[in-house]
């Protein structure tokens, strides 16, 4: 991959699976992981599951509470909370860190810790 080690890509690749998943999220608004896989044509769920988890940590998605864990044919349902536009957010607007960071803390909050 091109770029310096640790360099943050500020723009998502417009033809990537993640960008397609983001477009699907914006169209469907409430969705499950199979919905995203079906509409993006992805065969493996790992990438999209990770993306949904990262977006949820940074407040872009929320999990619907009517989901029953372990029930056959039931999947976690997500809904979109913040829709900043057609391009997949790569850097969180609230904390200013990349989506891959595991917690979202505003800079002043992070400074107090």
């Amino acid at each position, binding site marked *: 991959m091109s770029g310096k080690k640790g360099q943050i890509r500020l723009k998502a690749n417009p*033809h990537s699976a993640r960008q397609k998943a983001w477009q699907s999220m914006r169209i469907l608004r409430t969705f499950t992981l199979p919905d995203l896989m079906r509409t993006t044509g992805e*065969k493996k769920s790992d990438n999209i599951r990770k993306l949904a988890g990262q977006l949820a940590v940074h407040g872009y998605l929320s999990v619907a509470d009517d989901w029953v864990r372990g029930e056959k044919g039931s999947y976690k349902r997500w809904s979109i909370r913040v829709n900043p536009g*057609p391009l997949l957010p790569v850097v969180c607007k609230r904390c200013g860190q990349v989506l891959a960071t595991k917690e979202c803390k505003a800079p002043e909050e992070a400074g107090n810790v």
Partner: protein
Amino acid sequence: MKHEMAMTKNVRRFLGAVRELSQRGPGLEGMGLLGGEPGEGKTTTLAYVSNLVNGVYVRANACWTVTAMLAEISHELGLPRQRLKHPMINAIIGAMLIEPRPIFVDEADYLLRSTDMLDTLRDIYDMVPGACVILVGMEELAAKVRANGRFARRITQWVEFSGLDVTDAVTLAATVCEAQVGRDLVEHLHRETRGNVGRMVVGLSRIESLGKANGLEVVDLAAWGDRELFYDQSLRTKRRK
């Protein structure tokens, strides 16, 4: 379960319509219409096709004016924000000439309130070879358009989603289910779910579990017996009585 898009008749028809509009000859109108009742998979198909053809998706609303519509399309194309209609439409046409993309307008019923919005969309696809506009709405949209001859003339592709038939159910079972499902069981599933895709997928996941647990090559109606296919199946039967 395999989470893949089943190529049902509805999906194939819509994909074919978008491709025909994108590759239309000169002088032909480039507007299509997708209608159907709620729950027939319009939005999922729209998301799938939009990703496949790199479409521009916008959702109309009751407050839409020509300016609001152009601002929304500009935003989707990643263009800088502008206040006036004329520079906005020029920027949109400029961007679309570099990369022609189909525009999908969801909740298009709102567009029929003003002819100006439809004329503006027509200007965009007239100026950009390879671009087209697909209006998506409820089943009433088709009736409204039909009633107005001026709009109907511009629509060259009509796709109305209908419920899944048994052939579609067989396609769905073959696409998503990892176990082989007998024709009689697919027919039973189709009858019980009344062609609802979501319930069919739940039923197929249960059928697949049964097949895997018992090492069955083909799960048919005899193997399935009178088990429940989906959670509220018995409740629905009671209600019908």
